[in-house]
């Protein structure tokens, strides 16, 4: 799936071949087929709007609805007016602002750590190619076969008492940032992209006197913006979604992200305000999705692979 992202193989078929599915142009001209398909498609659209957009619209509505109305008549449209204060209360009194900032910090740090590891690792494996590269690649690849659950407890104990460091990383953002970098998927994804870059450019740069650092920073990275974008979006989204790991290593509520705080405050917060908090937590991923829709949808196949 990854090679579909690489520029030279982006289009698998020649542009002349029209995209077509099981239904041919001739089929489309038959009235029976056309009516059935059109009705099916309209129905499908209705189902998608109800299932995909419906819960989000409800969340948006609940975010500004008084708690009493949510409990007694959830589907009525503002029977007793709108309560904008929910949003303000969630942001200030429930301190969503603070948890929101924590989430942003965690996402940025995880992004940085994944970028550093994936680009430098991909560079070594694809461009510098030392003799022991195969061994390293094999060891990185091997981690993809280990289900995340195996790492949970030993990784937690490693964070409690990391070797060489001498102090526990519990309750520090580093405990989330650093392990995030160990993504074999990112390394191999970037490596595959680097493999498809034209070697002639590297040779030309070397002839012009560029060392390995210059080659990395001024040639390889600028040529790799598409894949860096994909890795970035995945990194931020994955960090935003992460729940179990920050729950384990960030015990101090003051530094916990939204995903950990939201379940914790659920019982003690006014329902309307709580739903406003949920809505706020959805905003950034939603905005990212709308901004980078193309990246999301064209690489969601990769996302599917990551999820497993």
């Amino acid at each position: 799936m990854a090679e579909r992202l690489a520029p030279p193989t982006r289009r698998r078929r020649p542009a002349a071949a029209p995209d077509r599915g099981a239904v041919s142009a001739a089929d489309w001209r038959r009235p029976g087929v056309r009516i059935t398909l059109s009705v099916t498609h309209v129905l499908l659209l209705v189902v998608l709007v109800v299932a995909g957009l419906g819960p989000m619209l409800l969340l948006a509505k609940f975010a500004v609805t008084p708690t009493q109305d949510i409990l007694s008549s959830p589907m009525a449209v503002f029977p007793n007016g709108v309560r904008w204060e929910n949003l303000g209360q969630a942001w200030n009194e429930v301190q969503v602002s603070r948890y929101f900032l924590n989430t942003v910090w965690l996402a940025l740090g995880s992004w940085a750590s994944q970028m550093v590891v994936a680009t430098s690792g991909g560079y070594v494996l694809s461009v510098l190619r030392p003799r022991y590269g195969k061994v390293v690649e094999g060891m990185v690849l091997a981690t993809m076969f280990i289900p995340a659950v195996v790492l949970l407890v030993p990784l937690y104990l490693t964070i409690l008492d990391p070797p060489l460091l001498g102090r526990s990383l519990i309750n520090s953002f580093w405990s989330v940032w650093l392990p995030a970098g160990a993504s074999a998927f990112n390394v191999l994804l970037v490596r595959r992209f680097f493999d498809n870059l034209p070697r002639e450019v590297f040779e030309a740069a070397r002839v012009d006197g560029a060392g390995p650092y210059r080659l990395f920073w001024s040639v390889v990275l600028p040529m790799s913006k598409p894949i860096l974008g994909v890795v970035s979006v995945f990194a931020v989204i994955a960090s935003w979604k992460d729940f179990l790991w920050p729950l384990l290593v960030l015990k101090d509520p003051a530094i916990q992200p939204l995903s950990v705080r939201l379940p914790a405050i659920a019982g003690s917060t006014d329902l309307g305000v709580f739903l406003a908090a949920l809505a706020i937590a959805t905003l950034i991923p939603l905005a990212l999705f709308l901004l980078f829709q193309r990246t999301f949808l064209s690489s969601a196949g990769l996302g599917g692979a990551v999820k497993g």
Partner: protein
Amino acid sequence: MTTVSTRPAPPAARAAVVRRRARRTPATWWRGGGAHTLVFLLPVLVIFGLFSWWPIVRSLVMSFQKTNLVTPAQWVGLANFEYVLHDPLLAVAVKNTLWFALLALVIGYPVPLLAAVLMSEVRRLKGLYSALAYLPVVVPPVVAVLLWKVFYDASPTGVFNTVLGWVGLGPFPWLQDQSTAMPSLVLAATWAGAGGTVIIYLAALLSVPPELYDAAEVDGAGIWRKVWHVTLPQLRGVLFITLILQVIGTAQVFLEPYLFTGGGPANSTVTVLLLIYRYAFENSLGGNYGAATALSLMLAVVLALFSALYFRLTRSWSA
């Protein structure tokens, strides 16, 4: 690109390479930029070493040890495995996990395929269809669970009970009842995950060679026959992969049971991962890390068989 460097060299050049290899010394390594290579490799070595390779090795060791973080770890042989296998909750957790996986297959597996096949024939606003289908995937899972928990309110004025009440159904107890709790979790998980699979299928549908459809038409195939005899066989590879990914994912389900029900009612939603979590992190007397890693390893061995299968399939499928 890579074929250029791997093309077989003429015999003379190969001999030269062999001779050069024979004369490799630390000095040639240094002059060849070997140290710079190591600098670039450092992040991978440190991060993977500390947070991936070492914990993997450690989990193997720990499953045969008793660790309480205060006194030094003791070797206990297979005691951890025995403890886990004798825990009456294990059978319940395995049964629940299998039940979750089965329900997810029945409810969640056909939905994205059906949606994708239909969507691939859409002529206008195709982007809108895929964006709508993908929207739930964008919602952070924790938010999705907490939101659905509100929807699942068991009172007659809960969101779902209100809507179903319009057509004379319900009210249903949803998460409150042993028989409906698990299907409710699966329904929410399916909603949250289906969009990603739809997009995978849509991409796979694009790579079905159009000539196959043309050929089927020459043979007089109708739309259904084309879908059945061309589209589905062409998706075979990707269908296998999503199936295995789904099995691996559902075997490790944690978020939904943890946040929706906490394993209740009456342990009807305790899954294997929830049990691992309880062993390690929910014991007030200090974690039973040995039992937790032992159970993790047992789960991993089962999943490794699936993963190996998955990798072989992706190799043959993407080639």
